[in-house]
């Protein structure tokens, strides 16, 4: 998922949990038992006062601040952490990642389903029993019809992951070709009487439970229009509902009057009565607001000149977390100058990753990256094709080699637009990249764009973006979530705002390698991860992107905030914060 704030690659913890998760997934597919990646168990029974919930701390208004809104509020369209964090408390899928702190947050558990699905037909059929009595925030009950309609809507709204996560559903290929008339009646079979839903896949997919646990697979009312709803809130089943969204001012979430806890692990009761996210302040002002207790949390990357102050004077309010994430510079492989592999390799040779790390906040907040898969992520192999002097990890840039490659490519002197988000940190990163491009022989022009639209802007081929800076935070702990989602042919949709393959990279041999790795996941996750490592090497040889660094995340909260919990899957659990 796309993210704007500070975050980092989680190393061993992610690997351990992911390996465990995927391992169980592998056995699930062939077994026909009711398990899945993440090893989820049956949900706990619902109750209005779940164990562990402390009603004494319920109430109050949680005030979040962000520089800008994050685009569409539609959970099947939006692909940013800024809103995905909020969706955790407002929308549910058939499955969910456990809303808890630590490694357990990678575990997939039943959500609107009463239990983990029964997997049969060699991993190609998933059968879910739905909970009874769950209602949307508009009072409508959740039915099997809503489930079918929601999956069809993923294609109707051209969800960013429609072509990667859900294309394996029977009938999905036709839906991708003709979204408006998407019909998944053969792929998703509802049984109203039994209150079950059966999903048929064209091939076994051990990662499928993960894909059902992300917001794009949220179950929405069947009568939700099959178009991007923009700022119009869609009713959900979570503890909160979106009451209003004004992208120029404020987003408001209120308690869902129809919500009753049915699974503490999947959708716990929240603490604040109201959650608001205010837009428009500069990040400097956001930090000051939190320091003064006028706001409770800063979403955006913290400004460089405040980090020292935050890390010393407000040490107890700064929560530094390691993550599985990456900052990278996608290069458009379909237009000049980066349609020339040598030009792309030159950029990789030229970038001083340690400079990028410094701009981001120093070595305690980021580490140089050389591979597409973050360190210690499933499939990651230590190698570095673009470091001076060689070696398995990045040590220094090689400007001479970069300049030579630019000359050899015949692209020297060309104008290159660098599209970045206009917030302080990203703009600084962009300015540095611009300087590097100028040094190696290009005429670089910096184009800062509001964070509200930059992510979709750089995806659309119509905008002819040559190079940009973006970041990627795992949707779930599997190598495919980086390599297949970001660089496969299936993720490239020319002319669309939801073409997450920003580079437009579509290399048939590498795509075949990815497919083989995905297939291999059905039998051996270890072998599959080895194959993903080889894919990573093949990708970096083509250099469609320049990995920059793996970031860490600082959550800076106000002094009144208590009960801070950090999910490694979706980061700070917003609705679990105590404001009183």
């Amino acid at each position, binding site marked *: 998922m796309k993210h704007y704030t500070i975050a980092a690659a989680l190393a061993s913890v992610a690997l351990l949990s992911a390996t465990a998760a995927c391992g169980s997934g592998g056995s699930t597919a062939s077994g026909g038992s009711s398990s899945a990646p993440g090893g989820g168990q049956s949900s706990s029974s619902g109750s209005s006062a779940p164990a562990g919930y402390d009603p004494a701390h319920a109430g109050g208004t949680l005030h979040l601040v962000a520089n800008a809104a994050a685009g569409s509020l539609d959970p099947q369209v939006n692909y940013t952490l800024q809103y995905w964090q909020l969706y955790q408390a407002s929308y549910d899928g058939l499955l969910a990642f456990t809303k808890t702190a630590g490694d357990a947050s990678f575990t997939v558990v039943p959500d609107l389903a009463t239990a983990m699905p029964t997997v049969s037909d060699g991993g190609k059929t998933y059968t879910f029993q739905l909970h009874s009595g769950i209602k949307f925030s508009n009072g409508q009950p959740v039915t099997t019809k809503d489930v079918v309609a929601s999956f069809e809507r993923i294609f109707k709204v051209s969800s960013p992951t429609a072509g990667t996560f859900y294309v394996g559903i029977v009938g999905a290929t036709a839906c991708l070709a003709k979204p408006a008339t998407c019909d998944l009646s053969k792929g998703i079979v509802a049984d109203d009487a039994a209150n079950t839903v059966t999903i048929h896949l064209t091939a076994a997919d051990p990662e499928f439970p993960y894909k059902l646990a992300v917001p794009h697979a949220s179950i929405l009312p069947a009568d939700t229009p099959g178009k991007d709803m923009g700022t119009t809130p869609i009713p959900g089943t979570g503890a909160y509902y979106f009451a209003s969204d004004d992208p120029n001012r404020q987003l408001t979430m209120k308690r869902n009057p129809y919500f009753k806890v049915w699974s503490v692990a999947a959708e716990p009761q929240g603490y604040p009565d109201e959650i608001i996210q205010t837009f428009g302040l500069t990040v*400097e002002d956001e930090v000051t607001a939190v320091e003064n207790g006028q706001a409770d949390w800063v979403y955006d990357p913290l400004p*460089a000149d405040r980090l*020292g102050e935050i890390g010393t004077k407000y040490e107890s309010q*700064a929560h530094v977390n390691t993550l599985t994430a990456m900052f990278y510079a996608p290069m458009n492989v379909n237009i000049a100058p980066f349609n020339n592999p040598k030009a792309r390799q030159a950029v990789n040779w030229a970038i001083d990753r340690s400079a990028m790390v*410094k701009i981001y906040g120093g070595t*305690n907040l980021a580490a140089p990256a050389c591979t597409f898969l973050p360190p210690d992520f499933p499939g990651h192999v230590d190698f570095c094709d673009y470091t001076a002097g060689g070696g398995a990890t990045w040590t220094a840039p090689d400007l001479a080699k970069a300049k030579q490659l630019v000359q050899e490519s015949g692209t020297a002197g060309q104008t290159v637009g660098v599209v970045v988000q206009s917030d302080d940190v990203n703009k600084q990163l962009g300015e*540095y990249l611009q300087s590097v491009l100028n040094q190696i022989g290009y005429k670089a022009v910096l*184009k800062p764009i509001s964070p509200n639209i930059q992510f979709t802007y750089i995806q659309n081929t119509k905008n002819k973006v040559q190079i940009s800076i973006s970041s990627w935070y795992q949707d779930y702990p599997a190598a495919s979530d980086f390599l297949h989602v970001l660089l496969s042919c299936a993720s490239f949709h020319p002319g669309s705002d939801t073409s997450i393959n920003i580079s437009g990279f579509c290399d048939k041999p590498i795509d075949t390698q990815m497919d083989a790795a995905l297939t291999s996941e059905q039998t051996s996750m270890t072998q599959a991860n080895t194959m993903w490592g080889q894919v990573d090497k093949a990708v970096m040889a083509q250099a469609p992107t320049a990995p920059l660094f793996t970031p860490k995340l600082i959550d800076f909260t106000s002094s009144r905030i208590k009960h801070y919990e950090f999910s490694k899957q979706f980061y700070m659990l917003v609705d679990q914060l105590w404001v009183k």
Partner: protein
Amino acid sequence: MTATSTVTTPSALAPARGPWRTALADLARDRTAIASFAILMLIVVVCLLAPVYAHYIAHTDPFQSNVSGTTVVNGKTVPVLAPTTSGLGLGVTPIGPTGDVHHYFLGADSQGRDVMARLLYGGRNSLLIGLSSALICCVAAALLGVIAGYFGGVVDTILNWFFDVIWAFPVYLLAISLSVVLLTNGLRLGPLSVQAGSLWLPILIIAAVYVPYVARPVRGQVLALRGREFIQASIGIGGSDVRILRRDVLPNIAPMVLVFLPLMAAINMLTEAALSFLSVGVQPPAASWGTIINDGLGLLYTRPTVAIAPGLMVVITAVTLNLLGDSVRSALDPKARLRGAA
């Protein structure tokens, strides 16, 4: 013996001075004007010497990032961007003012660039944009104002509509809107082609948005002139429009336009600073005082010099231009001189 002598007045002895020489003499006696002009010239000269400072004194490239670089302070080699070592060890801080002209005299910005060198280069751009746009604006405004006032009729109506349309927009909003569009796509207007990122874009945009502010009073002056006897006489004896405009109208509106020039330069320089501060003026890595203030915005807490230094330069230059403008107006306006004499 009585002697008689003829008393001659100085005015009778010296040839009569023209209005321009009189104005120049007045300016030469005006201490404020001299001081303002001297300060302005000092700023201009120092800014023109930016390459000398950067290449031969500071030995730095103010347009290249130097994030991983080092410098020398008190004989010790230190990183240009120093990491925080206390507390959680978060963040890096650019080196502050060293007072050493050879090594980051005013410190570094977030990209590790020498602020002093960028300040001088930025001054070149700010002054160039301020003065050029003022010149273009005044020339264009004079031309349009004269045409509207002299020819009247449909021409006057159309030009007035044009001025009204531009005036209908808040000037900064119009400038920002034009900048946002043109900075992305560049400007292509017939044979005129300006690339995105060129300094000509802010120059032309700023000049364009202020045209009505000068053209309106010029038009009014020409309207008044047109009814005067000497113009009517010229028309009566069959003088061509071009001759009347050249010989009778332009000399009479020139003082007004000259008075506007320094004032518009100050206003335009402030507008440039505002646009660049909002990232829609001069584009990085080029510098102007506005862009440096923007760069310093993120360092206000740790390195305020980065924002304060260019801010001071903007203030000083704008004040000197305004004072100079006032003096020029006093010198060129006979009524003002009479008031002063009274």
